[in-house]
């Protein structure tokens, strides 16, 4: 019989390593991008993002010249997709509609025709960006509180509901750190930027991070009276084994869908789906291998303390 609980030290080590790696990724990102542990998109800080599709091959330097000539001193220009796509991404400061129109016209005249039907651009004023960022922080805070409340409600009738709550929150935090670390890494490697959709993915990860925990805890609650006298460790492990099929089968199905979207879906939602996928994998791991064994560790610590007190 596979023993999740006994292997807990191994699992805790793995979780520790993952957390450490995530923090390293966040720090490296902060060093590389002026203190941005995650690269922030224009949604939150303002600016303009162009995705331009040219009808023929163009030079990066020519694009840069047009932007500089129009007073955009430091545009960040990247190729999008394959060379044959003739697609370029340009990031620069906020520009009003006349400025954008002028930039596009100048690009047409001096670089190459921009196919408007295959291009998009998005510009955000810095003040709105700041407001959105504030809303976002609030949303994450409220989401965490709501999950906390939900856990408290779900376990109001088990012994030590506080304990169940704490380990669920620990698991959730581990998930969030891993998801953030993954995104920081992709920011370094692929230039991914945290936008409103990233936040949506993060909030979804937070919301889902208690699902598996709840099912296992539910089973523990059911098994305690049924197997009276059995050590807690055994009951917990039994509960994990009884529910592991369901956890894996469910996660697998969700993953099938997400992988299909990653492989075949639109480019714009790839980071969004990827964060949810990573969050979901780490959620399965943290629920079964961190949250639940942590409960046992806590119980054992308690038990040892009681014994020590009795001995004294």
């Amino acid at each position, binding site marked *: 019989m596979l023993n999740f609980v006994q292997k807990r030290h191994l699992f805790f080590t793995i979780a520790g390593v993952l957390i450490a790696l995530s923090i390293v990724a966040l720090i490296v990102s902060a060093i590389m991008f002026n203190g941005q542990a995650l690269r922030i998109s224009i949604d939150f800080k303002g600016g303009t993002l162009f995705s331009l*599709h040219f009808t023929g091959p163009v030079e990066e330097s020519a694009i840069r010249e047009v932007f500089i000539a129009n007073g955009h001193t430091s545009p960040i220009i990247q190729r999008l997709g394959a060379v044959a796509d003739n697609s370029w991404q340009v990031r620069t400061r906020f520009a*009003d*509609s*006349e400025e*954008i129109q002028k930039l*596009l016209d100048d690009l047409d005249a001096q670089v190459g025709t921009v*196919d*408007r*039907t*295959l*291009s*998009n*651009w*998005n*510009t*955000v*004023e810095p*003040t709105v960006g700041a407001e*959105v960022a504030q*809303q976002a922080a609030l*949303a994450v805070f409220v989401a965490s509180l*709501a*999950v906390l409340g*939900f856990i408290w409600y*779900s376990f109001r009738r088990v012994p030590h509901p506080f304990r169940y709550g704490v380990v669920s929150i620990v698991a959730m935090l581990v998930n969030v750190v891993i998801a953030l670390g993954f995104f920081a890494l992709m920011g370094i490697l692929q230039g991914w930027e945290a936008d*409103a*959709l990233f*936040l*949506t993915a993060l*909030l*979804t990860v*937070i*919301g*889902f991070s*208690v*699902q598996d925990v*709840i*099912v296992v805890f*539910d089973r523990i609650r059911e098994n305690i009276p049924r197997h009276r006298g059995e050590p807690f460790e055994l009951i917990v492990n039994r509960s994990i084994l009884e529910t592991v*099929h*369901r956890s894996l*089968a*469910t996660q697998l*199905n*969700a*993953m*099938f*869908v*997400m*992988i*299909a*979207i990653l*492989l*075949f*879906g*639109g480019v714009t*939602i790839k980071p*969004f*789906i990827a964060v*949810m996928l990573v969050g979901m994998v780490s959620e399965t791991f943290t629920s079964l291998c961190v949250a639940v064994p942590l409960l046992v560790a806590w119980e054992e610590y308690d038990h040892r303390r009681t014994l020590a007190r009795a001995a004294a």
Partner: protein
Amino acid sequence: MERRTIISFVLILLLTAVAIYGVAFQQHPAWLTNLLFWQPEASRNLDFQLGLDLQGGLQVLMVADLPPGQALEPQAMETARRIVEKRVNALGLTEPIVQIQGKDRIVVEIPGIDNPAQAVDTIRETALLEFGEPPAGMTFDSIYMLQMTQMPISTTYGLSEAEIQAQSAMTGSMLFKTVFTGADLANAFVTRDDRTSQPVVAIEFQSAAANAFSEYTSSHLGQYLCIVLDKQIISCPRIDAVIPNGKATIQGSFTFDTANQLAVQLQYGALPIPLKIESYKAIGPSLGAISVEKSIRAGVVGLAVVFLFMLIYYRLNGLAADLALALYVLLNLLLYKLVPVTMTLPGIAGFLLSAGMAVDANILVFERMKEELRRGRSLMRAAESGFSRAWTSVRDSNLATLLTCAILYIFGNAFAASLVKGFAITLALGTLMNLFTAIVVTRTLVRVAFGSFGDWIQKHLWVLGL
């Protein structure tokens, strides 16, 4: 088999037929779409509504840009919205949205537009109100025609003397002479005519312009003077008397509403509040079409794998879950058409994800069922206790998802993030729908199967993946 089971089975079949009809067919008779009383009358249909990211278009977020210390009146905001809406509608594109967001923002969404930059200019442009003198020799009938057809006219406003000369010299010139502009007006409001008690629009000129207006009216008695807004004639009253004090009324066949509208336009010809563009997003229409195509492909592949997995892993039960899932997909799509839910890229992702997770409830039940069978329970008892005992877990995990959706929706609502809202809505609808299909539909299907071939299944438990 119980009577109840047979009835719900028949009802499920009927529902399936309805869903297939609603989703798979493009054309629906008018009497049917007219039943959708909650949709706006002008656009009742059973079509998918595509968001900006799927059909391309323009989204502009504007904020009231008042000098510090000046209070923002909700009434002025509503007027600004109406003026912006009029201008957007004048672009002649399908289903533009102009909404007030929060206290001081207006969001404009124009789907399927080719030239977004031009549209932004149109929205922001300050409306121009003119009092135009019709060109000499133009009959009242032709003036009336211009007013009725809303044909744009040309006026002398902003033209140089030389240009005016050149244009007037052309035969059949249609050049209106601008004698006053909105800048000369002090006030405009709706009142009722003393004699006829018809609604009329009263206007007051500023004191400097009042004298000029008095002189003008005395020298042009019996002639028409057209009120022109953004180069369109809105009314052409006749000067019946000299107007000495700068106070005049515009009579016409007004209802109270149309008179009020004119007063608003006269007073606020320019937007009542200066609007500043805060964010502006343009998406090429072909880009949207590519996204739709890719999303459909991703959805088909992803769901196909889920169908296969359930079939292989849970066999006969898996088949029941697959049928329930197929109905789930159909019902969700039907709901998107009925409500209607605007589909966006994240919205589709939310739907697909909810479909992937929809089988969770079934999995919980089937795992329970297997456990009970292993303990030696009879087939029927195992099935029933599988459904009833898995319920708390199903309820809790769905509740957690709904909670997440609520937070996402509130967050998305706070700053016009329609993409975030799209994801939250489809995921939430999917979760609710799931409670119906995964529990009611699957249970009925399992009961029908076990009721019909129970003995055989009991002897061949491998068909349940045991």
